């Protein structure tokens, strides 16, 4: 081995050393870039974890005993009294956090810290949004890539992509004044600000991403497959469903994942459109509040370092784990579904 390497050295004539140095530097820079993203991810996880776990057990969180003199001086008499009472009555936080749907972290008398209702709400809104956005988005993409005359595509695609530029507050506003009342009228409900309303709006926000990326995926399916299918006596519809969509499945799935990833981040829309009720939803017509909405609403008002403050980090941790699991599962599905290379 060593001999062989030494023999190869003289063949790097002139500039060999500096080229190797440059390659080393480039490699190091790339490793740094890749490493830093991992560090950021671990860092975020660490912050969530360190702050989140402090919510559990009894006696930690903010109490008069563990405030410094400076901190105590900054609080008013009323706040000090409230803090004292709060700590006294706060029950311990344990398994209830995951298995109870009772959330009332600010109450001094009946404080409760269960996030199950929000977890279920988040799942309902998200899954419902996927159930709406995936078929519609893939359908439109298939039509654009496969059926529409080139002119229609040239006009429609930029318009669809402009949908992505609408701020989430505006979408939430449309949900309050238009989509919500429409849902209430159609289903005969008193209140249209519910899980379905949030899901519809999220679906609309996910559509541009889903359509654009899955159209590319469908377009990238080799024309050879289409020709082979047609020559076997399949019609265009059979060819689309049996050959083109399966061949583009990994790209289409990635499109749906990305679209939903974007939509889930649109906390503002969900917060405005879903009616903001912290309880276990009984159906898609109930008002709900998602994990993201809870953090957004409550984090601004919470005393830093209090148990409630740490609880919101724990809520963030739950969200992080849920997102992680979804990514992991979809990655596994993609890996299994992809045709093995030739």
């Amino acid at each position, binding site marked *: 081995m060593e001999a062989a390497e030494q023999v190869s050295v003289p063949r790097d004539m002139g500039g060999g050393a500096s080229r190797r140095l440059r390659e080393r530097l480039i490699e190091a820079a790339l490793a740094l870039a890749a490493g830093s993203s991992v560090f950021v991810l671990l860092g975020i996880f660490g912050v969530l974890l360190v702050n989140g776990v402090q919510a559990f057990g009894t006696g930690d969180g903010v109490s008069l005993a563990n405030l410094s003199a400076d901190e105590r001086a900054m609080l008013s008499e009323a706040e000090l009294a409230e803090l004292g009472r709060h700590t006294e009555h706060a029950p311990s936080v344990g398994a209830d956090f995951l298995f109870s749907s009772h959330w009332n972290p600010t109450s001094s008398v009946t404080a409760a810290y269960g996030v199950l209702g929000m977890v279920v709400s988040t799942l309902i809104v998200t899954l419902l949004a996927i159930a709406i956005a995936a078929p519609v988005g893939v359908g439109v993409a298939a039509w654009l890539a496969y059926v529409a005359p080139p002119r229609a595509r040239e006009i429609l695609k930029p318009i669809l992509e402009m949908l992505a530029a609408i701020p989430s507050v505006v979408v939430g506003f449309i949900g309050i004044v238009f989509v919500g009342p429409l849902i209430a009228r159609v289903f005969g409900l008193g209140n249209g600000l519910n899980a379905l309303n949030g899901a519809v709006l999220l679906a609309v926000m996910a559509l541009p991403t889903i359509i654009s990326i899955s159209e590319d995926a469908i377009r990238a399916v*080799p024309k*050879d*497959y289409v*020709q*082979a*299918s*047609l*020559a*076997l*006596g*399949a*019609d265009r519809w*059979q060819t689309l469903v*049996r*050959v083109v969509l*399966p*061949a583009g499945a990994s790209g289409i799935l990635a499109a749906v994942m990305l679209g939903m990833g974007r939509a889930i981040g649109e906390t503002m829309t969900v917060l405005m459109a879903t009616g903001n009720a912290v309880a276990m939803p009984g159906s898609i017509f109930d008002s709900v509040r998602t994990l993201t909405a809870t953090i957004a609403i409550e984090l601004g008002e919470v005393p830093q370092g209090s148990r409630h403050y740490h609880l919101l980090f724990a809520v963030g941790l739950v969200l992080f784990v849920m997102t992680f699991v979804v990514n992991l599962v979809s990655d596994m599905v993609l890996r299994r579904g992809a*045709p*093995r*290379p*030739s």
Partner: protein
Amino acid sequence: MKIESRGLDFFYGTAQALHGVTLGVKTREIFALIGPSGCGKSTFLRCINRMNDTLDGTSVRGMLTLDDADIYAPNVDVVKLRRRVGMVFQKPNPFPKSIFDNVAYGLRLGMKLPRTELEGRVERALRGAALWDEAKDRLSASAMMLSGGQQQRLCIARAIAVEPEVLLMDEPTSALDPIATARLEELMQSLRAAYTIVIVTHNLQQAARVSDTTAFFLHGRVVEVAPTDTLFTRPRVKETEEYITGRFG
């Protein structure tokens, strides 16, 4: 005549690619189309199963019949036509599915066959395409795992699974190595017993080896049609002689 073409013109938009093509293909013969690139061989082949219909702005004039029935008559069901006239392409193009699902593809389109019947037909098609021995232990493996020659035989199995009468082959060996090519030529000889085969080939030796009749195309016109040995030994037309002796093309 199984296939008969009389005065067939073909247009891509306004560009005329075929000029009055007249020839006849007999039942269960191997009919070869030769000629330089761009002379219209593929275009003619794709008229027979109406694959050119899938392109915008194409039009046909003249007469093309299958068993004396006009292929371009308004009442013709293109799906039925393509089940009677199978096609194998230049580049092997199996679907990114399992070997079994590739062969079963055409069988599953129109009808719902019982599983045992489907398996029987898939086996018969794979045997017919001389691929059964290599594939029988990995029918559920992806077709993409096969070699180029095996993929092309899989495409033949896929085409014959629906039991067509005619097989169209557009330069089926041009992407294959010599050994895979020899196997495919052998396979064509065994297929001749059951199918009428029209093959486009760039390889004159191949046309001479496998075909019964050869047509020489030039600039969208048929220059000469004759029994293969006659065409290669005593061509009547000067252009044919120049082409087969390698003076142009």
